[in-house]
């Protein structure tokens, strides 16, 4: 746990208030993550895992505390700069894949490049290349509904990587998949980390899977960090 990690989370707190009821989803979390690490996050339902990930991904803003990524305090960024941060630094995958149903696999993968001002030909080229990297070169023109869950998640992984982000955030990416497919996906993430030097934060209920592939394991309980153990040291 080095204090000058690639990702530095300090006293991060998120309070949701709906009417008179206040829910503390995240409570004074302090976490440091080194560059190129694969960090697993686990915890019971409602422990604040997704909240942490949304704050890390710049989709939400904290109630207190701050987050630094590399040399930028992202909790200080404006709305537009947060969008740019998501665009160029973060790639996200979700339990429910979140592919656009009317777009083919290639179009889904190429979609983020639309906002990055990349010309159409280059968009298609990069998307095709990434689909090959996740082993779906033959399925580029299929719609999400024509793909299996595992294949859809691989398309989502390709989409998350198309803008060449430094950090990949995965919120229960295997939640909708059987154990064999789950293992394939996590293995793929592990390989990507090794090949591309990605920093990965992955939320999962399956601790065994995390213990097999992750470098570190963070356990959340009631919005607080219960434990942060190192499974593997840096190579």
């Amino acid at each position: 746990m080095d204090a000058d990690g690639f990702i530095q989370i300090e006293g991060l707190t998120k309070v949701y208030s709906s009417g008179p009821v206040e829910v503390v989803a995240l409570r004074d979390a302090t976490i440091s993550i080194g560059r190129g690490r694969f960090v697993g996050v686990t915890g019971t339902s409602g422990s604040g895992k997704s909240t942490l990930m949304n704050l890390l991904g710049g989709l939400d803003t904290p109630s207190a505390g701050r987050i630094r990524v590399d040399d930028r305090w992202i909790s200080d960024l404006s709305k537009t700069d947060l969008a740019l941060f998501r665009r160029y630094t973060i790639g996200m995958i979700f339990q429910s894949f979140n592919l656009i149903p009317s777009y083919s696999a290639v179009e889904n993968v190429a979609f983020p490049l639309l906002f990055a001002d990349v010309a159409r030909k280059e968009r298609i080229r990069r998307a095709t290349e990434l689909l090959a990297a996740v082993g779906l070169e033959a399925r580029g023109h299929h719609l999400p509904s024509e793909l299996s869950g595992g294949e859809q998640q691989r398309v989502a992984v390709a989409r998350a990587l198309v803008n060449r982000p430094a950090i990949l955030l995965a919120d229960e990416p295997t939640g909708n998949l059987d154990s064999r497919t789950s293992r394939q996906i996590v293995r793929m993430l592990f390989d990507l980390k090794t090949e591309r030097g990605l920093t990965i934060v992955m939320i999962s209920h399956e601790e065994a899977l995390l213990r097999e592939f992750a470098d570190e394991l963070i356990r959340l309980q009631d919005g607080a960090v219960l434990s942060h153990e190192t499974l593997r040291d840096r190579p």
Partner: protein
Amino acid sequence: MRASDYVGHAWANLWKKKLRTVLTTGGVVIGVGSLICMFAFGQGIQRNIKDRFNELELFNYINVTPRSGGGPRSARLRRHARPQPAGDPNESVAVLDDDLLEELTQIEGVEAAYPEMRFPAQIRLGSREQFTLVQVVTSKACGSALVQLRAGRAYASDDANEVMVSDSLLRRLNVTQPEDAVGREIEIRTVVLDFSLQSLARMAFGRGDQRLPVSNRVYSFTIAGVLERMGFGGPLPIRSDAFVPPGAAAGMRKLVLTGVSDLFQLPEETAGYSAVTVKVASTRQVMSVKASLEERGLRTFALMDQLEEMQKGFIIMDMFLLAIGMIGIAVASLGIVNTMVMSILERYREIGVMKAVGATDGDVQRIFLFESGMIGLLGGVFGLALAWAVSFVINQVVNGFAAREGVPFIQYFSFPWWLCLSGIGFSILVSLLAGIYPTRRAARVDPVVALRHD
């Protein structure tokens, strides 16, 4: 995002929901189509009126009367050197005589200047009689290009004992071939106010129409030529059917009509011209000719002056048509708002994805605004096509009926290029305005909520 990407993206999304796009665009097509139709109709009417005015050269005429108070009366007073009851006796008043007419013809841009003088008369040719207004016109004017000859020629001189008649009068006198009338004798019976003792006695003791203080004089003329019915008119030409030269007319006792005031003048006193019509070669010169006429102390009236009033009327008409057309536009824009709100609800998760992969609020809003604008563009283009098609059908039908009545074909609608362009532009503008509220909602979607798995 590049502009071409916005367009391509918008087009792809609209194409995906063909039925909804067609229905929404259909609303815009009808709204914009009816608006353009209304405007095209307004433009058509205005163009027809202006064309008609230009064709009749109504804008080319200036009516000239002497200045000050009683108009023709003051001119006459000066001629007869009667003491004026009030005012400066040395006041210079232009007199509308032949010298002045000649002078007016010299003004740059003036094509012709002729006195405006008509008198009522009974015309007899053979056994048929017709009542009409006879106009006094110089032989010069009669021989000019202003006249469209049907047969014969203009009268030889201003003193010739000849007339020119219109083909329509001849028809009423039962002569169908204009050539047949040339050279024939015609009788003009004038009506004169008569306040002689004899006549007064008749008024007191007579019966029927004999009680009116009028008497008749009969003059004989030869028909020199036949022309198309026309008016040597001022701004609003009264069409005349018979024309006599001034020399011959001077010798006739008649009731001269140039204005209402003339009804109260005794014929002997009508020595000068009470009004003169000046025809200007080009409408562009009307204002300068008017100015130089007024410098000479004359009072002028030109329909050109009324053009501004007329245009105000046209603007009011346009506004009225616009107000009606706006109803359709209002309905169409509600349709757009509805479609956009629906589309945004459907693509709620997609908006979440857009934001997760780095779209700014502005990117999201612009993506949907382009869709909205595209509906406007399609609606505008097809609306224009619809307006054109509808106006074509209406034109054919109305002209079909009118043709049976012998009315020539009239284009009731006019589609000037600026109307077409601004119609499409307006359609896009309205669609963008209608898109503001839904697209702002899209931009404000919270990605955390949108992406939460269900």
